[in-house]
């Protein structure tokens, strides 16, 4: 049924004040999957949210003192000064549910209805805060005077949102496609195989596929496969240079984990287990993760827990692998001789602990490293992490926070901008096109491959 003129006046009234005469900004919009009744959505959301709770997360839920400092660390708040982007506010319905259902004084909260039940309308409203305006970058975690890991809580809240069918469509569809086809962006085993054959032929490099036994298993990000395939050539050249016995396995190559980003813990496990099983099958001693931020968190720090015990192989981000081999002298590099600034992928540096690895690689390349103000562990996020770059309605906000990033980069005056995350690279490329910016993002991996000593 179409809306009547009265409905339209009520739903979308004219805004006559202010310089922008037009339709009043509509209420927050949200996406919804499935036809589940609202009450069931709420119950499922909260059950999934608390599923992975334990002493650590409960400690965080008990500890907030409402000081508001986390806002000052968040690029969304800093750029908009809109208080709704205060990181801990993004957890408000989940804090409410925790107090009512799980906290040590839950019986008081329920008895006197001090914390009312969370409504589906609240969750719908919070979808924008939990997805569009949080890249899970974890800068807020470093400012909190109580030490609350707010980014981790947002990740858990996303579990609840996924189960409630309240995920932005793009992220939901990417996760569903990844679970069904093995890749969120169409890099299916068939497509990937064709690409590898073409790249090997075109660049005259050997890209070993599906070896039964290999010491090293290389994984890729769909973004690299589909948009930056030169990364595949780069890693092949480097591993040949190092004389590794390596392979790419079509039964476990996709390192991105949209199960994790969208909040589906079961799919997260499925995606992680594909890589783990493939590596075990060929007796790998090392799995190299690609230039992808969240892939590092998913396998390096959460993979063993999905597996249920210590992994029988090491897991390293490609920047760590390069740094190890630069230090032990196996990786021989020419001097690149440029001034470079490095953009730290949040999940590898701040939240992954591998902040120094790319710097060691850059030192081996002999570049002049010009650190950004607040670089390294306190680096501003590019704005595309946590799946945000996939969400179209979040574009304007994403460009707003990207302005902060451009300023940070420009202030260094470096000739070259480098990172070690293809999702950051994608976000930079999009931002560059949007703002007609004169800086292009380069891959650390490709920089190394271009400067291998003969």
């Amino acid at each position, binding site marked *: 049924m179409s809306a009547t003129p009265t409905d339209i006046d009520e739903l979308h009234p004219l805004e006559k004040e202010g310089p922008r005469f037009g339709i009043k900004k509509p209420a927050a919009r949200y996406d919804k999957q499935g036809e589940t009744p609202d009450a069931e959505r709420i119950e499922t959301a909260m059950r999934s949210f608390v599923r992975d709770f334990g002493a650590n997360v409960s400690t965080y839920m008990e500890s907030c003192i409402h000081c508001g400092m986390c806002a000052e660390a968040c690029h969304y708040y800093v750029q908009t000064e809109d208080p709704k982007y205060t990181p801990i506010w993004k957890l408000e319905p989940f804090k409410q549910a925790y107090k009512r259902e799980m906290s*040590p004084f839950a019986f008081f909260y329920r008895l006197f209805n001090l914390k009312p039940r969370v409504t589906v309308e609240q969750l719908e409203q919070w979808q924008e805060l939990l997805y569009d305006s949080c890249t899970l970058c974890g800068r807020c975690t470093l400012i909190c005077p109580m030490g609350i890991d707010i980014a981790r809580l947002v990740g858990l809240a996303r579990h609840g949102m996924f189960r409630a069918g309240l995920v932005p469509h793009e992220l939901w569809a990417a996760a569903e496609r990844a679970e069904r086809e093995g890749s969120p962006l169409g890099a299916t085993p068939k497509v990937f195989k064709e690409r590898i054959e073409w790249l090997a032929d075109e660049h005259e490099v050997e890209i070993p596929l599906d070896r039964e036994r290999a010491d090293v298993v290389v994984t890729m990000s769909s973004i690299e496969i589909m948009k930056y395939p030169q990364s595949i050539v780069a890693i092949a050249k480097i591993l040949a240079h190092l004389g590794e016995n390596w392979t790419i396995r079509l039964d476990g190559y996709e390192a991105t984990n949209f199960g994790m980003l969208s909040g589906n813990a079961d799919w997260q496990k499925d995606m992680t287990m594909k890589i783990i099983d493939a590596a075990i099958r060929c007796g790998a001693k090392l799995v190299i993760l690609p230039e992808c931020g969240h892939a590092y968190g998913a396998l390096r720090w959460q993979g063993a827990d999905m597996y249920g015990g210590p992994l029988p192989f090491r897991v390293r981000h490609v920047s760590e692998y390069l740094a190890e081999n630069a230090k032990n002298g196996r990786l021989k590099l020419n001097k690149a001789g440029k001034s470079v600034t490095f953009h730290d992928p949040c999940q590898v540096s701040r939240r*992954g602990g591998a902040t120094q690895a790319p710097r060691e690689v850059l030192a081996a390349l002999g570049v002049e490293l010009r650190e950004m103000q607040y670089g390294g562990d306190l680096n501003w996020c590019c704005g595309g992490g946590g799946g945000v770059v996939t969400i179209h309605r979040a574009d304007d906000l994403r460009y707003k926070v990207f302005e902060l990033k451009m300023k940070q980069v420009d202030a260094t005056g470096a000739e070259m901008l480098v990172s070690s995350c293809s999702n950051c690279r994608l976000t930079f490329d999009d931002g560059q096109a949007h703002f007609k910016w004169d800086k292009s993002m380069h891959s650390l991996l490709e920089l190394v491959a271009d400067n291998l000593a003969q």
Partner: protein
Amino acid sequence: MDLLDFARGPALLWSLVILVLGVAWRLAGVLLQKRRPDYSEPRSTAVAAGAIGTIFRRMWPRKEFQARTAYSTTLSYVFHIGLAIVVFGFVPHILFVRNLTGLSWSGLPSGFIYAAGVVTLVALVAALVRRLTHPVLKLLSNFDDYFSWFVTAAPVVTGLMAVAHFGARYETILAVHILTVELLFVWFPFGKLMHAVLFAVSRGTTGALFARKGAAT
């Protein structure tokens, strides 16, 4: 039994019982929950050092955040230190604790304590004004924030009134002062005042988890 006897007798006893049992219940309710093993290969095994280091490091914002948090950090430091001076430095408070526990230490000059009390109150009022006016704090604040402020400020106000012999008969003001402290004891386990205990648990948790990953805290 007059009001002062009530404040010094049963009210004190029961408020302390609620304080101790409440804190124990809330802490146990959190700490005794399941702890999942972490099977990832650690980058560092110095998790205890990470926990302790973070407990101390978070006493002050990192340099990257100092400019944006200078006002609230200063305000918080002023009233926390002010409260500590008044609570632990005032001779009558020390005598009160000695009567209860046998513990004793030397006090600070009364004039200094009065000044500290006034500065603390000014900082507390400034913190309240900030909470009522800053868009982020306004949005975040709930009953707990305002009531916790009240039970913190009330003993300071009534204490200053008692030493100034202002407002009512000394014994009455003193009784009200003690009762306001007991109100703080009773509220402590239920609201955000628990941060006086939880700060170490929460910071230590993140410190340990991040140290394992070799990540900065």
